[in-house]
């Protein structure tokens, strides 16, 4: 307390610079000044190029059995080896990456949209609306997520769409709770009251005043969500509940898991790919978060 008060005088006195730049270009400058964020972006671009352009260069069908099972990486011309059915893992990584990333991003978007909406309305309106929405959230929270998503997939059939929806529907609760608590805090701040006495409507207050200030923890949650959605899809496909006709990283892990002691690489390679993707996305998320914050932008 006293320390912050004492150091405040020193830190506060930043020389004012007067330059008017477009907010977007300022944000871009800030983002690109952050090496970690740029590294994340480069990494993500490489992964996207690998998965989406790779198949045009390396044209092996990921479902075709091309060699004897468990050929270690680098041998017999298979850069990443073959799996338990003798399928080319490199081809599976390319094809599976497209699906995994699509599911990860789509499921994260779904859970953020649901979570932010529920959390924002609960936190902003309070009272009975909040009680009702939070009981609703708790209802979803106490459901065993894997079991619940299995039920959804079993009921509506295993397709990419149902799997994505199922993951999104079971994982929004964390976003909702974070959003609500941020809204509860920010709605009491005086700049919200000031905007209201400037005759702002509820929608403006929620989306233009409170939400931008509530973003940092939501972005962090959304980052985590991408990774966990990819892993969730892996779990579902391991249980045989994902679309069997499409290859995904999760499916590679799931199908090779029984043989992990004999051929660890078949599990480790897709695992490492998931790790790299999640890392890239969270680095970008962090960078975006900083770029969106005008306080950090000046540093």
């Amino acid at each position, binding site marked *: 307390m006293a320390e912050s008060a004492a150091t405040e005088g020193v830190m*506060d006195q*930043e020389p*004012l610079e*007067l*330059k*008017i730049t477009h907010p977007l270009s300022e944000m871009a400058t800030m983002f690109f000044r952050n090496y970690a964020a740029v590294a994340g972006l480069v990494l993500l671009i490489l992964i996207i190029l690998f998965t989406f352009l790779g198949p045009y260069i390396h044209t092996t069908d990921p479902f075709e059995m091309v060699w004897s099972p468990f050929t270690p990486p680098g041998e017999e011309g298979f850069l990443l080896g073959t799996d338990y059915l003798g399928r080319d893992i490199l081809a599976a990584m390319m094809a599976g990456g497209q699906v995994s990333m699509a599911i990860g991003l789509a499921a994260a978007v779904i859970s953020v949209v649901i979570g932010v909406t529920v959390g924002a309305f609960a936190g902003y309106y309070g*009272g*009975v609306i909040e*009680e*009702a929405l939070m*009981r609703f959230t708790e209802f979803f929270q106490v459901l065993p997520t894997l079991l619940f998503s299995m039920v959804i997939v079993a009921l509506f059939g295993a397709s990419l769409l149902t799997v994505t929806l199922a993951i999104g529907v079971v994982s929004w609760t964390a976003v909702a709770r974070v959003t609500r608590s941020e809204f509860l805090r920010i709605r009491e*701040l*005086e*700049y919200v*009251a*000031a*905007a*209201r*006495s*400037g*005759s*702002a*409507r509820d929608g*403006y207050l929620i989306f233009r*005043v409170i939400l*931008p*200030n509530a973003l940092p923890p939501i972005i962090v949650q959304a980052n985590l969500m991408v990774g966990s959605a990819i892993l969730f899809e892996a779990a579902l496909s391991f249980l045989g509940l994902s679309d069997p006709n499409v290859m995904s990283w999760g499916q590679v892990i799931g199908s090779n898991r029984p043989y992990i002691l004999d051929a660890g690489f078949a599990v480790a390679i897709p695992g490492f790919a998931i790790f790299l993707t999640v890392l890239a996305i969270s680095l970008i998320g962090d960078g975006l978060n900083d770029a*969106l*914050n*005008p*306080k950090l*932008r*000046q540093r």
Partner: protein
Amino acid sequence: MNAAATKSQESGTLTVEDLKVYFGGAKRFFSKDAATVHAVDGVSFSVPAGQTFGVVGESGSGKTTTALAIMRLVPITAGKVILGGTAISDLKKEELRSARRRFQIIFQDPYSSLDPRKRAGDIVREPLDLMQIGKLAERDAMVAELFAQVGLRPEQRALFPHQFSGGQRQRIGLARALSTRPELIVCDEPVSALDVAIQAQILNLMAKLQRDLGLTYLFISHDLGVVQHICDQVAVMYLGQIVEQADRVSLFTNPRHPYTKSLLAAVPTVHGNKRDRRTRLRLKGDPPSPINLPPGCRFASRCPMAEARCRQASPPLEDRGDGHKVSCFLV
């Protein structure tokens, strides 16, 4: 009577009649109803156009809640707030939105009252956009002019709040309040968070703006020196009620209510010294909580003069001549 009626119609005149704001007590889903807090309990006063009305009191006195209720930022339990003939306490959603341009507020904390993610210019411009004031093309020039009016450089519109000092941030808040050309500005402790040297700059600026624009101020503060300096009329609040109200000179030269007296005695001044301070009136204890209010005069539990009847009935706020109102049986 007729003259008084037309007077209260005049734009900028604020009249508050028996204002009550209670918190809590509402039932929620699955939870018991909480105790009711009588934050503001029957407050009435009126402020002539172009004047400054001060409300002083300690924490828990309800002065800030009074300000927020007049701004329609907290729900009003009962009573009326009339600004220039319009009963703003009765306005419904859209009517209230369009009436809001007539009354604005500035807050105590220059740090939490400005959105950290918006540029200073956009903060001042926001009410103009929301209320469709002026033509789109003119608004930028209007904002620049407001900046100049409060002593900021128009180029500073592009900066973010954290790049300003506390005093400058309060100027931004003032510019935002002025942007809609309001009749009334509610000032909730506008200088309490500022350094003493900066307080004077803001107080002088506020006085100048009042002279130039004919603004009515409702000035909430705990700082008696500041209130004495800037206000025409002063009301002293204790636990949700006004205990004394008078014009500035009368209140400070001739305080009547024992609470007002002890409040004045508690303030250290540069004219005082170590020896004299000890001889002054001292209040014991803290104000009781506004949840379980004792019957009778709310000040009785701390009052050095209280008698038995003070604990039985509430003294009314009565005019003791020259508009000096006191609510006390004993003076």
